[in-house]
């Protein structure tokens, strides 16, 4: 099993918790309590890997954070050592994309990891498909930004579930692809070490240095 840390960031009430709940519990509540501090959830998925016969099992350790601006000072505690970040905005709120951009910038500046997968997600797609189109952010605009910044991008609806699973699956696949060599190398080593029945966790880590300052 592979374990990855994933953090959700974005403006208040864009639907971060709703996305996580759709993914973890496959449920949706119209009114969800505002998240205080952060909530921790986990979910396991299976992905197909080319070279391997068996499916690869991936466990996501998910940190769902509070969206209010002032919680930003706590955010480094949550995104440090993260492997992936979901930066969420609300398709019906122009401002929320501005906030999303600033999160992307912060992640790029503070997380010194080139392998960090950032996924830009526009939520509330269901509201943009009715007769009264509430859309305030064009797909093309967000897409262009994501390409420019080299982010993954999609639009989803936590309410209907549209696109949510796919987000996590593609993160899983991307992380697996970038860690594949390490994983295989480690597996071989593990086979060699079986006598000790122990895994040298530190061995595969590039450095003991911590790249982010924690809470400031």
């Amino acid at each position, binding site marked *: 099993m592979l374990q990855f840390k994933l953090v959700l960031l974005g403006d208040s009430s864009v639907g971060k918790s709703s996305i996580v709940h759709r993914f973890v519990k496959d449920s949706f509540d119209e009114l969800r309590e*505002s998240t205080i501090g952060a909530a921790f959830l986990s979910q396991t998925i299976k992905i197909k890997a080319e070279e391997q016969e068996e499916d690869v099992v991936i466990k996501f350790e998910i940190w769902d954070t509070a969206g209010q601006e002032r919680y930003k000072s706590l955010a480094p505690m949550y995104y440090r050592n993260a492997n992936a970040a979901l930066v969420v905005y609300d398709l019906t709120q122009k401002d929320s994309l501005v906030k999303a951009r600033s999160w992307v910038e912060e992640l790029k500046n503070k997380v010194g990891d080139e392998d960090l997968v950032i996924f830009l997600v526009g939520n509330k797609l269901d509201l943009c498909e009715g007769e009264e189109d509430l859309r305030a952010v064009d797909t093309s605009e967000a897409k262009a930004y994501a390409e420019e910044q080299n982010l993954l991008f999609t639009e989803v609806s936590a309410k209907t579930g549209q696109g949510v699973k796919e987000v996590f699956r593609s993160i899983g696949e991307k992380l697996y692809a970038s860690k594949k060599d390490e994983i295989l190398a480690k597996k071989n080593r593990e086979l060699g070490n079986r006598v000790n029945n122990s895994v040298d966790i530190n061995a595969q880590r590039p450095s003991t240095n911590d*790249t982010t300052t924690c809470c*400031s």
Partner: protein
Amino acid sequence: MVATDFTSPLMRTTTGGNHHGFTSKFSIRSPSVPNLRQQLYSETNNYSAPAIEGIPNNKDAINDQRSNSEEYGGSLSVIDLYDDNDSESPQKKSTRSITGLEDFQKDVGELNSMSADHSNDDLRRSNSITIDINENEHTDRYGFKKQSTFISEADYNSWWNDYSKYCVRRKFKWKLLLEKGGLPVDNDSPTRFPSKSEKLKRYVRKGIPAEWRGDAWWYFARGQEKLNRHKGVYDTLLVKVNKITEQKDHDNVFTDLEIIERDLNRTFPDNIHFQKQSPQDEEPELIKSLRRVLVAFSLYNPKIGYCQSMNFIAGLLLLFLDEERAFWMLVIITSRYLPGVHDVNLEGVNIDQGVLMLCVKEYLPEIWSYIAPITNKKGASNNRRTTSSTSRKNRSLIIKNEFLYRLPPITLCTASWFMSCFIGILPIETTLRVWDCMFYEESHFLFKISLSILKLSENDLLRHKKHRHGGGILSYGIKGGNSSNTSLGSSNDAASEDGDMEIFQIIQTFPKKLLNPNDIFDKVIFKRKYSFNRLDQDEVDRCRKYVSSQRTKYKHYIDTVEKQEIRGIDKSTNHIGEKENILTSEMDEDTINEALSSEVYGFKRNLTGVHWNNSLKAKVRQMKKKIDREV
């Protein structure tokens, strides 16, 4: 049922009674246990502008709703039992054998029909009104949904069957206590309580009667003093609030307002008092009150403004107190009990987490050993700035206390305990018991309860201990370092985060299962053997100061180091970086010395011996007796 004259004793004492019509303006009564019968909001309510209008007089409608639901055993409110004036009855009741919920409901019905005249009136009137009984079956006496992710409705009901009897017994004792002290219990809403004593502390810890809570909190938190010093302030604030909220275009001048708006419907969406009955309905009165309280607060205290989590604190207050008093209690909570916690920079959260970690280290060393950051010795010794033996010593101290600055991962979970004052963390009845004690004993109780929760979860935590040092799961918790690393020997190696995942899971879900408040109180809070029960307010105040100053020093230190790093990097391109680094580290000595000047925090321990001796003496005595008897 009692309760009719609702502008009287309570409101008079609340607002001083006789000045400029204050009384009527803020008599927005909350729908909590005590206030339901003094109710004023209902479907006919047209109360909207608080600074202008008075109280709608529709309490009868609500009374009807209540008694109707009681008649059918809807929400099993213990108040009905209390309303029986026969002081014997609660005891009688508790000795009677009650086999199940149905019997209990029957009892409620019996007691209802025995109770005072107007109650019978209510019952009679109730027949004319139909409400959704099924809906009430699923909610508790405050309107919260009984069921949660971790507690089924059946579990709730079977627990409540016992706990409601406990509440009746406790209320009976409270009544005796007040009567003995010559304090009136008129209309089942006492507004004065005995002066502080060990006995009263025990009473509070065993729970304040739900119907008295609002008044008792107000009394113990000295709310009236605060209000008296600020008479008319809320009034003035509301005028401003009205102006602001009526202005449709805020031009982003007041961003707090926007965030408040977004949170209003996300405050207790599971509580019937915060819900619209149907989508077409106007928003509930409590939501309107909540908006006014939060917006008024953000105007009153711009240093805090609005912080998510205050919506829950204010919301809970509104269930027990009228709007104006809820406002002042919010002021008191955010300044006295949780200082700085809701400030714009949230530094108070970090300070309190630092204090909590110090306490865990001191009082729960077992737990500390596996939530503490794993000190990375390699990182420390590799540090190129350790140039002299003194600075090495300094560094070791800094690293020792580094967890106050670089908080352990567990605080990712425990931070919200303080921010929302345990709302949503513990089940509601348990939360209320914590609030009882917080208002009586001040903020150190929040640390006590946190330590109690951790203590209770110890077994669960220990079970996962083995995972902590790598259990075969491949985790990619850590990332490659970059050159701007400023870590003081990275104390939080990713290896420690493998098992942390289990720890997070436990710490987050465990408190949510603590349905029975007495599980915490009887098993931990009332047990002398737990040394953290000696924690007092002085200690916590001292601790907060210490952590605060440590954090400031570290921040200063790290800023200095960062500046040096930048210079070092600049120079390193010319291959003199190393040299430069050594040079600057000498200059840095002062900063390090400053950090050294504060000793490691020392907890008061003088009482330990006394307590220990006492319990030992008692044990020796017991053993002697036993031996005597056997002989």
